């Protein structure tokens, strides 16, 4: 598949796989969503690989490798030197190089998912690294998160509100939270998910396919 990457200069080799980012606060469910997405995307014949940016260990990479959902060689870990936002924004070169390595190892690769290490509401992805990115928050973090208007919430291409199953337990009015999220994002897309049960994951896969794989 030919994927035009706007960031490459004339003469530089173009990336062939689409690159997407998944960021968001610690524990919001980024890895859980990736675990849900992998089988759904593979069922749609998407040739994919994952790069994780664990903060301190290789926990997430190991978890995905052991999951049996994807060949372990398709998961690379990039340690972030205690700087989860640097490695996706100010200096994404280690992630770029990991992406390049995956592309070289797996001809025909169509999609590389970069999971950011858990960070705060200010983390955003550099468009050098990804073509499109998702920010994942969860209802247990509080229904006031959208109102705090963090750059991740505002600037991401897609906002995911995860752990909707927990809303009744943490006293969150989900409908209002989603409406406020939509409002602060000026109507740009927001998806509600429950990564435990898989709710909303098909919609998430649809959004990815439409945005970067140009498939319905």
């Amino acid at each position: 598949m030919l994927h035009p990457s706007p960031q490459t200069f004339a003469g530089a080799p173009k990336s062939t796989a689409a690159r997407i980012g998944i960021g968001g606060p610690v524990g919001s469910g980024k890895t859980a969503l990736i675990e849900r997405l992998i089988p759904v995307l593979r069922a749609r014949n998407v040739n994919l690989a994952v790069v994780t940016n664990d903060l301190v260990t290789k926990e997430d990479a190991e978890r995905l490798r052991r999951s049996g959902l994807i060949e372990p060689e398709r998961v690379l870990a990039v340690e972030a030197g205690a700087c989860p936002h640097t490695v996706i924004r100010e200096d994404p070169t280690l992630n770029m190089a990991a992406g390049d390595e995956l592309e070289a190892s797996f001809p025909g690769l169509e999609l590389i998912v970069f999971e950011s290490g858990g960070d705060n509401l200010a983390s955003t992805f550099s468009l050098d690294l990804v073509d499109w990115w998702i920010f994942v928050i969860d209802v247990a973090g509080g229904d006031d998160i959208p109102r705090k208007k963090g750059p991740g919430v505002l600037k991401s291409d897609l906002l995911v509100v995860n752990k909707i199953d927990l809303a009744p337990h943490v006293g969150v009015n989900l409908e209002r939270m989603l409406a406020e999220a939509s409002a602060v994002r000026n109507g740009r897309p927001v998806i509600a998910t429950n990564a435990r049960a898989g709710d909303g994951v098909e919609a998430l896969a649809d959004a990815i396919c439409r945005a970067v794989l140009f498939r319905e």
Partner: protein
Amino acid sequence: MIGPLLAMWQADAAFPSGGFAFSNGLEGLAASEPLDGEALERMIAGVLRRRWATADRVAMLHAFDRASDLDAVAEIDAEVEAATLCEPFRAGSRRNGAGLLAAHVRIATPGAADWQARVRAGRAQGHLAPTQGLVWRGAGLDAEGATLASGYMVLSGFTTAAVRLGVVGAVAAQAVVRRLLPLLAELAAAPAPDRIASFAPRLDIAAARHARGELRLFSN
């Protein structure tokens, strides 16, 4: 005045090359013995003398001199691979080299794409020092600027990592940098030896121990 500016541009931590993710043994050292500003300064001085001046600088300059001959650069690269005894340093140097290269390929620095193709094809390792020499030549630096940029990045890389590890404060770290600049200038002015030689066993041991550790902020 473009020479010094080009060197500053490359030595600036704002130029993305992945260097921030490597502690080059410091994390392992800090975990095994109490370190303060003075100990940090001694440690960096030792690395500058016995690793940077005799190994990194030499490999970088040799590649700089022969940047248009990829076979020659690959030979220097193989020499670095053989001379770096400690696996975490070898792996870190390759990954840091790949990071620097990724940035230079994307800004279309002459020579970068060909070197990257060679590394990807498995016909070179792409270590940091020879990669610096090659892309810095392509980017227009002069040998003196390239030498200073390479040394300064080692120095500031250690102090930045030390701040993140809580060894020294961000301001105190700059006092360490200031005190070591004369040493760096002196080492940079000395003629480069013909062959690569490195000796910093404490850091090698610390990095090896670090590689086995569970909790790691840095890559090495």
